């Protein structure tokens, strides 16, 4: 690939803008709430696109393209069975409790609803998870830039870490959110031509399918058994991915919830995931379809040669279709995706560390300035730890293995705790705590037994979906059983935290086109139609 001066100029201009946004927002960071929650003042179109973009990291851009090449359009189940229904559920049913209780973080909700130990457990596991995930983005960027630009791994990691550190320390969550929106538009403009050019040249959707293994063009018609590209039947798909993994991620992960908590009111917070869901429905065009195209047009993709691994599907397409100039835009799009993923994790980490660990257990009753200082320090420390985890990821065979393992340990069982906590007032604090501990341990034990060959699955993805379902079910059943033998919280303490126990919230009159249930209904219909069309 020929990368010219023009491509470096475009990448350089992008760096100037992301740092400029950080500098221009620095003056507005006065209190810790400005730094961690953007002063709860951001309009919903910005929080919505940031909600989307914080996820649009390495996993989505490189991982979904890689999966598209490996499993075909069934990869889009991550969107149309997974993400969209979960985002709608979050907006309509869960956001009123998160935003309405005025909590500053997801672990803080667990403290109000249950007890301190449940909060501490979640805060520590979440802090650990975010730095592990942030490392993935650095690592992914490093392998792309090593292969495409011949940068050393260490140089790529240090440059990206330095830029993200600068703009998040300067402008806190607002800077991260603003940059995520800028990055969202760059990603769309940088990657969209790939699908357009690729499909036009290969003879459209049908032309592409002729170059791919059979079954790559169907979502459901081969899901009656495990004899399909993904090796999983409809039950495993719907329970593992559609329910546990997706709802576990989208409805409980503070990385995404934090964007909605920065919204200016409850109505804007509810619209945040809905605004994100409209573009999200079409994202397979930017990620999964290019992966399928890569398999059709790049000979040897998926071979043992590291430069032809499935993870390289997207960068190889950039090299194939883009001339110098556009290549700079495409590379900037990838850089933007990795940086938004990294910054999203780091801003979630610094908030949970400062509010839920440092302020709660290590240094309570300090001044607001002190916590603001700690937030900035935590940002720097989080990035340094992420650099270490980036090197840890290098020991794993693929990014997706690493990430799915982390999610099945932490997010899958946690969703059972939230579901019961928000919708069943009898759920007791200690039942929630022990349910979560045992659920997480179940996932760890299941993973170990699978590695030792006690359980076997047709694909790693199938094993991961089933592990999540088992961990979730263990937590769900155990929490219910323990709730009958332990002491519940007094009802007076549950107002605004549990379904049927409403808090006193100001009534906001919304125009019909902003009503969450209506928007969610429209999105659900669109999702159903896509599933039927690509059956």
């Amino acid at each position, binding site marked *: 690939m020929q990368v010219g001066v023009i491509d470096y*100029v475009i990448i350089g201009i992008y760096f100037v803008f992301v740092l400029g946004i950080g500098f221009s927002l620095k003056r507005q960071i006065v209190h810790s709430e400005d730094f961690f929650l953007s002063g709860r003042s951001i309009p919903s179109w910005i929080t919505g696109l940031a909600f989307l973009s914080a996820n649009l990291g390495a996993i989505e851009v490189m991982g979904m393209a890689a999966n598209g090449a490996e499993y075909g359009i069934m990869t889009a189940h991550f969107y149309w069975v997974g993400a969209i229904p979960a985002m709608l559920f979050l907006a309509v049913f869960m956001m009123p409790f998160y935003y309405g209780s005025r909590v500053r973080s997801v672990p803080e909700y667990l403290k109000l609803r249950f007890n301190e130990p449940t909060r501490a457990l979640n805060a520590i596991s979440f802090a650990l998870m975010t730095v592990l995930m942030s490392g993935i983005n650095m690592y992914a960027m490093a392998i792309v830039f090593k292969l495409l630009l011949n940068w050393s791994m260490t140089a790529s990691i240090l440059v990206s870490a330095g830029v993200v550190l600068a703009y998040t320390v300067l402008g806190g969550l607002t800077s991260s959110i603003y940059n995520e929106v*800028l990055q969202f*538009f760059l990603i769309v403009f940088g990657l969209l031509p790939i699908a*357009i050019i690729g499909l036009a040249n290969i003879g459209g959707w049908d032309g592409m399918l002729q170059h791919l293994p059979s079954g790559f063009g169907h979502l459901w018609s081969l899901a009656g058994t495990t004899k399909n590209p993904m090796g999983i039947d409809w039950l495993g798909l719907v329970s593992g991915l559609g329910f546990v993994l997706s709802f576990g991620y989208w409805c409980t992960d503070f990385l995404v919830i934090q964007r909605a908590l920065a919204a200016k009111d409850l109505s804007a917070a509810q619209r945040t995931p809905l605004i994100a869901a409209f573009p999200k429905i079409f994202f397979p065009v930017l990620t999964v379809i290019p992966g399928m195209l890569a398999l059709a047009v790049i000979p040897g993709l998926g071979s043992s040669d590291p430069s032809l691994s499935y993870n390289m599907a997207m960068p190889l397409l950039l090299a194939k279709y883009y001339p110098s*100039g556009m290549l700079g*835009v495409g590379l900037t799009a990838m850089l933007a995706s990795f940086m938004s993923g990294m910054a999203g994790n780091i801003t979630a980490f610094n908030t949970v560390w400062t509010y839920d660990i440092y302020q709660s257990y290590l240094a309570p009753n300090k001044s607001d300035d002190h916590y603001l200082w700690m937030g900035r320090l935590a940002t720097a420390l989080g990035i340094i730890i992420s650099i270490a985890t980036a090197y840890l990821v290098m020991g794993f065979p693929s990014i997706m293995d690493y990430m799915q393992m982390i999610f099945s340990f932490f997010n899958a069982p946690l969703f059972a705790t939230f579901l019961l906590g928000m919708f069943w007032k009898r759920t007791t604090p200690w039942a929630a705590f022990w349910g979560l501990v045992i659920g997480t341990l179940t996932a760890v034990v299941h993973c170990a037994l699978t590695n030792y060959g006690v359980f076997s699955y047709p694909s790693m993805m199938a094993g991961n979906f089933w592990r999540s379902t088992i961990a979730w079910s263990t937590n769900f059943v155990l929490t219910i059983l323990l709730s009958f033998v332990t002491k519940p919280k007094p009802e007076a303490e549950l107002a605004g935290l549990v379904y049927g126990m409403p808090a006193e919230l100001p009534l906001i009159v919304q125009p019909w086109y902003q009503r969450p249930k209506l928007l969610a209904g429209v999105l659900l219909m669109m999702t159903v139609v896509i599933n039927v069309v690509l059956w």
Partner: protein
Amino acid sequence: MLDLRLPIGLLFIIIGTILTVYGFAVPTQTVVSGSAINLNITWGSLMGLFGLCMSLLAYRSRRSG
């Protein structure tokens, strides 16, 4: 608070202009569906136009605000 549409608009105008000018200076053809197009000019103009729309929206809201 900074109107986010302003930096987005400016960035897209700058990148769009650079791409378009570069596309004229160093013409490279990309084959799309059998016909050759200059991707830098086509996509650069689109990006510039998007940047212009964003800037106009920011300018309009500043005037009305």
